[in-house]
């Protein structure tokens, strides 16, 4: 049974998940399958790109963040998934050996007007490396079931 429902997410809600270390092998492994650009695959080739050295695919960073949030929160939440992502900013390269921490906060929470069993929680997720730099931000509305359907929120 889920522990968390729509009603548990207010504008005061915050959480932190991780740290999660990112290895060189997994950066190259993800890139080989999904984003085979030199800057994500090969140290020497990456040195000559704008990133100045091997860095994770931004999609890989999103996926690592997703796993941290799933394990830390969503698997215990009556989540119905996300209809999309408002915005992602890739601010700094994610390097081999970086340890990533995700910080979450709530930008908005409102019950669905059309479906009384659910609400939308808009989360801001910020990903930091172990040097304290924000490497990525993501804004995402999550569909979550209400603990008490039909009762005005």
């Amino acid at each position, binding site marked *: 049974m889920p522990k968390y429902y729509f009603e548990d997410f207010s504008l005061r809600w915050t959480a932190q998940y991780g740290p999660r270390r990112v290895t060189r092998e997994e950066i190259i492994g993800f890139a080989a399958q999904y984003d085979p650009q030199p800057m994500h695959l090969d140290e020497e080739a990456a040195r000559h*790109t*704008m990133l100045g050295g091997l860095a994770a695919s931004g*999609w890989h960073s999103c996926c690592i963040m997703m796993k941290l949030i799933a394990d830390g929160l969503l*698997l215990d939440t009556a989540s119905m998934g996300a209809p*999309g992502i408002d915005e992602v900013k*890739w601010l700094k390269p994610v390097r081999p050996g970086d340890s990533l921490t995700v910080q979450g906060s709530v930008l908005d929470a409102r019950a669905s007007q059309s479906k009384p069993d659910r609400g939308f929680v808009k989360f801001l997720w910020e990903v930091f490396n172990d040097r304290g730099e924000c490497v990525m931000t993501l804004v995402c509305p999550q569909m979550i079931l209400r603990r008490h359907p039909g009762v005005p929120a």
Partner: protein
Amino acid sequence: MRYFDDINVGDRMALGTVTFTAEDIKTFAAQYDPQEFHMDEAAAARSHFGALCASGWHTVAAWMNLRVQYGRREDAERSARGEVIARLGPSPGFRELKWLKPVYAGDTITYASEVVEKRVTKSRPGWGIVFAKNTGTNQKGELVMSFIGSGFVERRPGAA
């Protein structure tokens, strides 16, 4: 890659197709998005999705791979014609990603990319940012995914 200056709003690329097998969906989900509707047929059948479906991140990662492969083919053709290949930089991000329909096991998604905006950047002389609307459409012709992506593209030398 063409230079930033040779790319036009409205340019469209047909990137190809990907078929999402149940095995691929579950393998991806176990690594990155282990929600039960991406992991287990029986649990997915009980969920609001009604059947096993791919993580939204899986559907966009598959787009990325096809986009890179398309660029490689384009670069090889340019090389064969003796043309210069412009450098492609990283992406500063994306916006308005919409997962419009579930991608179910067995679905075949056709991906495309269309340039919607170009912007010269003051912060990176010699580079511009190209914005493209990227889409995935299933075998029934339903749009399942779209987003506005962006990426740095090298400017033609002397164009700035």
